[in-house]
């Protein structure tokens, strides 16, 4: 059970306070309700590039990192398809430094030309390091393009192509900031050795006079239901053939999300899962195989991913996966197997809660979903799922006509 208090400033900034007097540290987490799904298709990668620019100095503070390090603090940030999250950890005595830094960059950035120039290059190198210069680095770009025809999940957070990042202009940066980086579109979580009264006072003092801004209303083009199986074959300079199958899933807030998550785990979560046991250990068709999804807020993808044992034919590997899916669909769900995946969820949630930072991150995430208290009912949502519901989802989700299959061949010339 994670305890927290919540209040909202007049400008619309939601503030959550999670007191934990067992630690000498404090965490300040600021989540902005904007991710790469909110980008213009001609300017992809922008939300993430912007995250870099948030460290390039704000209206009254030329350098973000130095004063924080001087206060014994550390920070980082990440951008996903759904959201952008910034977090600081520092000794609790120095928490006001975090309020000062975060409120100033919510008020306004310095919009430095030099920072934009340098960070464009840095992000281009990040793009190369993770998505170009690595074997299989472009897989997710391909899968997204195959599985989404309409929804902005069809591009990756890093961006669709290098040119989108290279062409980013300072006016775009300003417009993006004033549209999305406002109190009304943000959630502040403060955790650790703090008190509610102290946080109220500091939040009012540092964030209270920032203009609230306009609530961003999201109207994303929705993905039409898939009606026929899709397939893509590519060849790349990689040493081994790989196979990917993605199936559309439910949005994070849909009741059926929990059953769907359990289906993925039964199929391919961990070394006692069905796919690993049959396809790696017994049939020896794959050297590794997993089934996973990203828990995205809009409808995501359940993906089966595996590398083939050298000499195995792609079609045979694909058939074997389909056979395992058919087997799962045609049987009643075994109660022990269902209990196992529920136990795995319970344990995973408990391990996430160990770290103060992760508790603060999660409170912000659930608040973004609608209500931070969802965090405390999360395991109950899984625990209530019945064997019948799981079985129904194996049929609904893993229908072959919903599949998006990528044959990724090793080009051995």
């Amino acid at each position: 059970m994670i305890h927290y208090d919540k209040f909202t400033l007049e400008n619309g900034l939601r503030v959550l306070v999670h007191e934990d007097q067992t630690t000498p540290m404090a965490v300040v987490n600021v989540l902005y309700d904007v991710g790469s799904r909110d980008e213009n298709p001609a300017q992809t990668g922008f939300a993430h590039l912007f995250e870099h620019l948030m460290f390039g100095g704000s209206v009254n503070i030329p350098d973000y990192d130095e004063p924080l390090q001087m206060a014994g603090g550390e920070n980082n940030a990440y951008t996903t398809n759904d959201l952008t999250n910034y977090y600081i950890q520092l000794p609790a005595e120095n928490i006001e430094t975090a309020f000062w830094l975060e409120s100033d960059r919510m008020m306004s950035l310095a919009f430095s030309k030099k920072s934009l120039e340098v960070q464009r290059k840095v992000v281009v190198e990040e793009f190369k390091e993770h998505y170009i210069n690595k074997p299989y680095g472009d897989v997710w770009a391909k899968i997204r393009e195959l599985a989404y025809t309409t929804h902005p999940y069809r591009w990756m957070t890093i961006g669709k192509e290098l040119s989108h990042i290279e062409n980013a202009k300072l006016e775009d940066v300003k417009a993006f900031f004033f549209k999305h980086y406002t109190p009304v579109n943000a959630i502040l979580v403060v955790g650790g050795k703090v008190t509610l009264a102290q946080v109220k006072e500091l939040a009012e003092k540092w964030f209270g006079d920032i203009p609230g801004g306009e609530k961003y209303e999201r109207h994303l083009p929705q993905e039409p239901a898939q009606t026929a199986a899709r397939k893509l074959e590519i060849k790349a300079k990689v040493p081994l053939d790989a196979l990917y199958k993605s199936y559309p899933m439910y949005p994070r807030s849909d009741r059926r999300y929990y059953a769907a998550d359990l289906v993925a785990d039964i199929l391919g979560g961990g070394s006692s899962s069905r796919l690993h046991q049959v396809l790696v250990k017994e049939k020896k068709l794959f050297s590794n195989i997993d089934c996973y999804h990203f828990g995205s807020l809009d409808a995501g993808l359940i993906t089966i991913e595996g590398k083939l044992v050298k000499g195995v034919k792609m079609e045979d590997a694909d058939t074997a996966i389909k056979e395992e899916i058919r087997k799962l669909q045609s049987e009643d769900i075994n109660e022990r197997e269902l209990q196992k995946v529920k136990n795995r969820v319970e344990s995973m949630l408990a391990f996430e809660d160990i770290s103060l930072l992760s508790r603060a991150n999660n409170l912000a995430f659930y608040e973004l979903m609608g209500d931070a208290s969802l965090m405390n009912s999360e395991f109950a949502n899984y625990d209530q799922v019945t064997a019948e519901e799981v079985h129904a989802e194996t049929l609904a989700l893993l229908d072959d006509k919903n599949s998006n299959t990528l044959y990724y061949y090793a080009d051995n010339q």
Partner: protein
Amino acid sequence: MNRSNAPAIKDAVEFDVLLKPYEKFTLDNGIPVYVVKAAEQDTLQLELVFPAGSWHETESLVATATNFLMKNGTAHHSALEINEAIDYYGAYLNRTCAHENATYTLHCLSKHLPALMPTLQAVIQEPSFPEEELAIYKQNMKQRLVVNLQKSEFVANRYIDKYLFGEFHPYGRVSSMEGYDALQTETLKTFYQRHYTYNNCRIFMAGNVPGNAIDLLNERFGKAQWNGNSHIVKPELPIQPAEEKKYRIFNDENGVQGSIRIARPFPNRYHPDFSKMLVLNTIFGGYFGSRLMNNIREEKGYTYGIHSQVHNFRQTSAINITTEAGRDVCEAAIVEIYKEMERLQTELIPEDEISLVRNYMIGAILGDLDGAFHIITRWKNLILNDLDEHYFYNNIRMIKEISVEELQHLAKLYYNPGEFYELVVI
């Protein structure tokens, strides 16, 4: 309120950094158990450590393979049954094999510990090393190696270790197809029997420790002299550094980035310069505000990240600067790395920078001591290296007190560009 003025701070150097003490228990057969309790969480971490790292193997990859395959079949249970037994309780049983030691780590909800103990006991005390599991392991590890060999950073890490320590030394030895092919179950069994014995076992436990945890451990690990008694003598293995200092290697003609490694040998943690170097290294390339990051990422945009680290290897150590930089700016980045070394040799570190780094390092240690799992990890590193809390407090003192003159002296001793190995893999 003037937003240009920073709020007052308490200097982190004024914080008392305390390493919470452990409790020590001894099982009936003499196995030491080190415990750090935290009642406020529901989770537990239990680690069993053996002197079974690659240092002790006589054939390549034997230590890692033994460590990995102990979990894949025991006298009475198949790999699947073991995985089922662990997964059913939502637990994780991880194995790691490092240079000196090899470890089995159980993470679980505390309430499930009793149910998991029989499986843990079987994995540690009666692994059977099935032929078929070894065959699958060889095939999968070879496939993984083939993929990794296409990554410039993986290849660069292998080469730099080889230059620093020599390819026959455990710190410089690398995996190979032939190495995997040569593995035999008999060799693994022999290695297991010699190294995973009750008298070589040490146990570290942290988190929400159930009241009967020591009794449970005693019942499963403390009664018998399981796997017998063996006296491990650590052989002396001299390093054989390469003569040639500069290397340019093409791994992929079309690569868009180069993996840069700039490294030199450095004494181990028992040398008085070691704890001083941790401070100098932080300034140079050990945190986000470091000189290398500021210059090569934030000024020039040559890379997504650049880091310098001091390895904490037991016998002998190294300083290693690593970055992935754009292919056409690799040489320019190297010039800047050396410039930053020379700057530390010729100019005293300004007062505001050194106090920032002192505060940053103390703050990071405070954050890192948060929670029982982190605290036991600190203790484990001390205990396994035959050190105690004095070493920890000496490092803290060094961070708070070392002078800029001393740091400059250190830079003159250890940051001479000509003494570094220099490697770019594209």
